[in-house]
Every structure is written in C-alpha cells, then in structure tokens.
C-alpha cells in the first residue's frame, strides 16, 4: 500500500501538549517537513524558547537546546559558532523574541548570524495565561490589559519583520500566516527558504508566522482564524520584507 501521509521523521512520536486550535502544531509540522525534505536532521540543532513552545525540545527529533527567556538567538549564536557546519534554528514566541529578547533578536540579525529564526506571533503570552504581548493589538483585551491595550498607557505593538528589515544583516525576512491551506503552504515555502539560506551561508533569516491562541483569545479555533484575518493581518501585513535574492517585497 502506498503511504500518502505520515508524521515527518524530524517530528518525535509524542503527543503535543498544545491546546485545540493552537497554531504551534501546524508550524512544528512544517519545520519538521522542511528538515526532512532538506535531509538535514542529522546536522540540525534547534533552540527552544520559554513560552508555550518550551517543550519543543521534546517534539523535534533533532539535537535541541532549551534557552532562557528571550536568549534563544544568543544561544543559537553560540551553537552555530561552535560548529558552523551545523544547521541551527530558534523557535520563539512574541514575548520571547519581541519583548524580553529584543536585544538578542536585533543583534543576531544585525550580525547577520547564519541562523534561522521561526517567530510565532499570536499577539499574546500563552504559557502564563494570556497577558499582553509586545505584539498585542491596540484595543485587544488580555489579562494585563483588561480594558483593552491603550496607546497612552501601553504604547503600540511592535512590527518585528519591518523593524529587522531595516538592518543590513538579515538575508530573508517574511511574514506569513497559518490561517488557510494556501497560507500554510506559503509558510512552508518560506521556512524552507529560511533553512536553505542558512545552508547556502547567506546569513540570518526569519519567518514571522501569524498564529492563533484560541484559549487565551477566548474564541473557538474557527473564530480565532477569523479574528486573525480581520485584526492581525491588517496590522501585520503578510509578505517578504527582506530578501537579498531580490524577491518581490511588500
């Protein structure tokens, strides 16, 4: 019998702890498929963040390091500099990458550190139960912005892809979404390019992925997809923000 669908080899055979409708499962699978297709599992080292995806070290069937909150790009830098032939990726959420780890993110990008960054932007802190994130939208209600994020009190959400695209170091920065089959396929292609760039020694690549957090948004998985499309995509436009290969930009 012909096998038409199976678990990627780079994904460990263990159940995810993620909530129903959470995007982490999809993105984990995409990363694992890319690792399989590029045949790099034996040379890949992943760096897990602090946040919902902290247990990524249990889910990817490759060597993994778990980093302190926000420090994944610094840890990945150490891993990459130790063994430059290895393929090193970080997997981080918005609180990790765009708040507590902003300096590590910006400077790894500025150095053009030859690593791949997978950035999950779901506009909320998931692991700690739904607090305001650096990417929480204006007006968005969270546990720590119970009256909605107010500009005068909490300022504006950060657009990381746009910000990092102003730097000379990065080779590829793209914002994607996993809200539809089309966008999931697009996300996978972007992840593949971000890994391929590293193999080709082109330097820092980041794929920002707009994701859902139904549990902390207080919505059903299907409603969450609608909320992402209606609220997140207008503020965080999808597309390529940096591509040294000359791809068409937003």
């Amino acid at each position: 019998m012909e096998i038409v669908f199976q678990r990627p080899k780079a994904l460990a055979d263990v159940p995810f702890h993620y909530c129903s409708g959470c995007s982490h499962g999809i993105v984990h699978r995409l990363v694992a498929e890319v690792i399989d297709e590029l045949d790099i599992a034996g040379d890949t080292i992943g760096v897990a963040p602090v946040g919902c995806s902290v247990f990524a070290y249990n889910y990817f069937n490759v060597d993994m390091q778990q980093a302190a909150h926000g420090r994944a790009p610094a840890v990945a830098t150490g891993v990459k500099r130790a063994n430059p032939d290895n393929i090193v990726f970080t997997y981080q959420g918005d609180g990790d990458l765009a708040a507590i780890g902003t300096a590590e993110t910006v400077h790894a990008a500025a150095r053009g550190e030859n690593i791949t960054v997978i950035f999950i932007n779901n506009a909320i802190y998931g692991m700690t139960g739904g607090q305001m994130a650096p990417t929480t939208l204006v007006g968005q209600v969270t546990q720590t912005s119970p009256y909605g994020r107010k500009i005068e009190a909490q300022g504006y959400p950060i657009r990381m892809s746009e910000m990092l695209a102003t730097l000379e170091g990065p080779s590829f920065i793209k914002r994607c979404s996993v809200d539809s089959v089309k966008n999931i396929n697009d996300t996978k292609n972007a992840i593949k390019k971000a890994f391929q760039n590293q193999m080709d020694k082109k330097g820092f690549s980041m794929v920002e992925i707009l994701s859902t957090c139904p549990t902390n948004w207080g919505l059903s998985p299907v409603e969450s997809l609608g909320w992402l499309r209606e609220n997140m995509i207008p503020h965080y436009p999808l597309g390529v923000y940096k591509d040294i290969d000359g791809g068409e930009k937003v």
Partner: protein
Amino acid sequence: MKGNEAIAEAAIRANCRHFFGYPITPQTEISAYMAKRMPKIGGTFLQAESEVAAINMVYGAAGAGVRAMTSSSSPGISLKAEGLSYIAGADLPCVVVNIVRAGPGLGGIQPAQSDYFQAVKGGGHGDYKMIVLAPSSIQETVDSTFDAFDLADKYRMPVMILGDGMLGQMMEPISFPDSADRPTYDKDWATTGTKNKRRANVINSLYIQPEELEQVIWAREEKYREIEKTEVKYESEGLGDADVVVVAYGTTARVVKAAVKAAADEGIKVGLIRPVTLWPFPSEIIAKTAKNVKAMLSVEMSTGQMVEDIRLAANGACPVAFYGRTGGVIPTPDGILEQIRRMVI
C-alpha cells in the same frame, strides 16, 4: 605579563577557542587579547550586545561541546547570573572570569572582594554551585585557568576564576603549563547533530515534575559533595604553633603575608591560611586549626563575607575576628599588623 592577558593566553593554551565578552573595566584586556588572537588561530571572539547575551552564547557553545569562556567584572557578573543558573541547571562546563571591582551598583573600578557571596553562594537562582578559584599571583592565575577548564569538563559545571582589579592589572613573570599533559573529556551529551546515528541530545534545565527535578538536584548535590572531598585547595604557613591564624585570599593574601612576617618579627606566633578554592571552601583545615589557636582573623576587601564561612567551619572553637577595607581600598600591612597585635593582647 599582565594578569588579564595571562588569563586570556592561558585559556587559549588550554584549548579554549570560543570567547564571548562585553567591555567592562577592569577586565577589558581579556577581551582585547582574545579579539587579537582568536581570529589568527581559527577561534571565535565575539563582542556580544550585553553580558546577558555573552553568557547565553557561552551556554550555546558549551552545549555544543566546545570549551567556552566569558569574562567580566562585578556589575557584569550580576547580569550573567541568569545564564550561570541555566548553565549549572543544564550541567554545562564553562569558565567565567570575574575581575572584581567595588560595588554595590556601579560602585567603583578599584579592586574589591565584595562578590564573594555572589560567587560562592550562587548569585543566580536555584540550588547550584560553581567551583570558585581565587588565585593570588599571575602564575597562579595562569595555572587556575588551565585547572578551571579541566574542572569544568570533569564535573560538567561552571567554574569561576575570581580575581580583582589588582591581579588583572599587575605584571609578573610567568610560564605556561603544557596543555598536552592535560586530560581530554568525551562530550557525548553535546548537541553536535545526531548525524542520524544516535538519539537526539537535549540541553535543558526544565523538569515539570517536582519529584523528577528533586532527583536531578540531589544527584548534582552528590557531585558537589564529591568535589568538596577532592578539590579543596589552600596554602598554609605557620599553623603548627600559631596563637593567631589569619585567613585571606587573592590580592589580600599578598598583603597579609607581609603583615604576618612583620608580626612574626615582633615575636607573635601567627599563621596563615590562604584558600585557593573558595568553593569548595577549605573548611576542614579551618575547623582543625580553630581548635588549636586562640583566635582567627579574616581579612577581606569587603565588609565581611568569607568570615561567615570561617565562623561556620570554626563552629565556635575559637573567636573569629574580621578586618576589612572596601570600596576599592586595599588594606595595608600596617593596618593588618595592628589587628594581629590587638588579638594577642
């Protein structure tokens, strides 16, 4: 050679090829030396965006199986405390140099020993230890650097070299040990890529189940107990018939030696214990000595930190006095001699 440069050269000769640092006085010469040498020998020198990033780069590189190092001075070590806790929690070997300056806060840039507690009692969160080496000459600084890398690899834990601005800036003639004579360590736990030949390695300090975490911590404690039995280092003199024994380490011990000699010239029976390892602390010799002397004196460039460990070790067998200068002021032999005289009245 200048102390800071001697540390850097010793690290390179001990086969460290990965250094991550951030500028801070009075240890910057270590980074500057590494910046010059590393590119020429195929090594990595990286000036990180912060002390926090530097120690996390060390975490990554150490986890990937190479000898990794960072250096800083007091305020910078506070920033590295998070990373040190993670490194200890993930059982990674690395060497961290603290060329101590006066604190708290920005304090001052002159020599101090006021980071003793931070070095030997933790600094970061959680149940963990670092081996802390406190050299008192440039030659000993070189030897300590070689030892630090070996101890780190042997026990898979962070090792700190605790110097001060005086040691870092001072010049003395030195010779380097031969690295060929040193042991090598198999790092089959490192994240070097599975090459599709083994199960994935994970570097991690997170254990969600309390019983599992407790087991990991107690296993680490067993390692610490073994280190306390086997790795204590100290220098002593004149303990045989001493009435008073002075305890001091690092730069302070150099000054104390002059004071002890002057006291001996006056006919005072005085001895010296100089801890070389601050953790593991030479508690045994202090406990033994405390039973045979009238009093002990701890001399430190702080308001009194090591004195607490001396008192714990002495366990009431004799009074333990303290004399210290702090804020970047180095005690003088005369000041110490005066204290010794008072103790024998």
